[in-house]
């Protein structure tokens, strides 16, 4: 599917991901059907759709976390900066460092706040104390958590509140210095005020990262995103600027979903 929200000429191509004819099966059930889309850089892209529509699956394709499930079969191509990530010889370790991910439920490791954030840099070979300390501080600042935790960096990550834990997980992803951040319903386990903080954070990060957010909350998509993809039953129904999707959707099904006619 070609979308007209991108400035699609070669001189000014700013697509981070270019997905073509992506099909995905879990065993015999097809979860994604012939999905083609281009995802613009330096924008927040929201993915919406009813549960089970394939939006989380699609997200996990982008950092190939989906490859962990043995029964998954995939056809089509997914290009990240023009490089097919399903071709042979892809360094998954580096791919996942470049394409960070934040999960639905905050999953801090049972380590200190500092060690949580330093986990990524450490496994990627950054060892010196000052280097790590800088990175951790900077990542926590970007995640708007520094002021709250700077005096207790060595307390366990799980001692934080739910919203703080999620920001910790965002800081942890940022410490890898990624290009893209994938967020899989990052606020579904949080209360409204923690949700607002995460949304502010997402907006403040969009100049520095390409962000893709899966959400079941349409107000959220409207508040944070520039572009929106709407999935239904494994198909990409519509992809456009958020404004157009919400005010003037082309597809009847998108309109039904936006106006709340789906369960």
């Amino acid at each position, binding site marked *: 599917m070609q979308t007209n929200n991108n400035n699609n000429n070669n001189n*000014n*191509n*700013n*697509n*981070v991901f270019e997905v073509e004819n992506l099909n995905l099966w879990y065993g015999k059930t097809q979860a994604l059907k012939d999905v083609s889309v281009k995802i613009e*850089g*330096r924008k927040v892209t929201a993915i919406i759709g009813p549960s089970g529509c394939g939006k989380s699956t699609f997200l996990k394709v982008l950092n190939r976390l989906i490859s962990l499930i043995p029964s998954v079969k995939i056809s089509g191509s997914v290009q*990240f*900066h*023009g*490089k097919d*990530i399903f071709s042979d*010889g*892809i*360094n998954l*370790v*580096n*791919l996942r460092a*470049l394409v960070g991910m934040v999960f639905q439920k905050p999953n801090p490791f049972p380590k200190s706040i500092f060690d949580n954030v330093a986990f990524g840099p450490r496994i990627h070979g950054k060892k010196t104390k000052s280097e790590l300390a800088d990175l951790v*501080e*900077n990542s926590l*600042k*970007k995640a708007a958590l*520094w002021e709250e935790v700077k005096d207790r960096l060595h307390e366990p990550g799980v001692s934080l509140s739910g919203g703080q834990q999620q920001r910790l997980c965002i800081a942890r992803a940022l410490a890898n210095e990624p*290009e893209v951040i994938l967020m899989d319903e990052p606020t579904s386990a949080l209360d409204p005020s923690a949700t607002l903080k995460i949304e502010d954070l997402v907006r403040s990060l969009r*100049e*520095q*990262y*390409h962000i893709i957010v899966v959400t079941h909350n349409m107000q959220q998509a409207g508040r944070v995103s520039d572009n929106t993809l709407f999935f239904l039953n494994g198909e990409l129904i519509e992809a456009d600027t958020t404004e157009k999707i919400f005010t003037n959707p082309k597809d009847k099904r998108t309109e039904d979903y936006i106006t709340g006619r789906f369960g």
Partner: protein
Amino acid sequence: MPELGDAKKIQLPLRGQRDAYIADKLTEGVKKSHLANFFIEKFFFLCGLTTIVILVLILGFLLDKSWPAIQEVGLQEFLFQTRWMPSSPIEAGFGALPFILGSIFVTVGALIIAVPWGIFSAVYIGEVAPFRLKEALKPLIEILAIFPSVVMGFIALVVLAPLIGEIFGLTSGLIGLTGAIILGIMTLPTIISIAEDAITSVPNDYREAAYALGASRWQTVRYVSLPAASSGIVAAIMLGFGRAVGETMAVLMAAGNALSMPVREILGLPFPTLMKSVRTLTANIAIEGSDVAWGSLHYHSLFVLGLILFIMTFAVNLIADIMLTRFQEVNRNE
């Protein structure tokens, strides 16, 4: 505290400037990391194979070591003859039938004791006991399972055998029955815990349907829960059999170990009996195994006994395993 300033902000470059860098990152060092992961995975794979290797080694090794005896004496003599004199220089005998029957009779005796006992106890835990009592009883049953078998043998020797001797007016209470009772007690925890699992895993729908039809709780247990759990209970009995047949120290210390057939003639017909001194397969291996001359025919004949024991327990455990898996699958589908 000095002002550290805001987080460093780097604006992402646009795509054209970035492609080469990303492509480079995505392909760097792939071979090296693949190789390392390959070796780590293969290492764990090999470790995972250990148990298969050990099982095959045990079976192959028992076959290998018993082969000389089977070849020279013949399997028939081991299985059907009754005279065991493996190191007699004049006329050696390799009839292991007394041990085989001894093992089977003592085990069956143990199960006759333990099965009703265990099932009733399980019914009590699963259906009668209030929740708190139930939670207290379970760990107590587990304690019964952790006594070393030599301790159980000792108890049989010093407490049970004198009692049995007195009750039946025998000079020695070290008879098959004593072995069967102590084995039965040792099998109890297995039977109780599996039977209790089986009873409590019967779907509530069944139970409620029975209550709705006006059945009492006991009738529901008797006609609904127990029949529905029957294959799980049978599996528990099989597992108990496997465990009891392989048990060594308790029977060795309790059952008397006489080299004779565990049968008594009544009206000229042989009847199984546990009222005399009995020696099991396991006890015989333990008695003779520590001072047998390595490599002798006697030595190899002990491996034949081991092989018989292995095959008996293997078969019983396999059947129990299949039944248990089937039981769990049936329950899951409901």
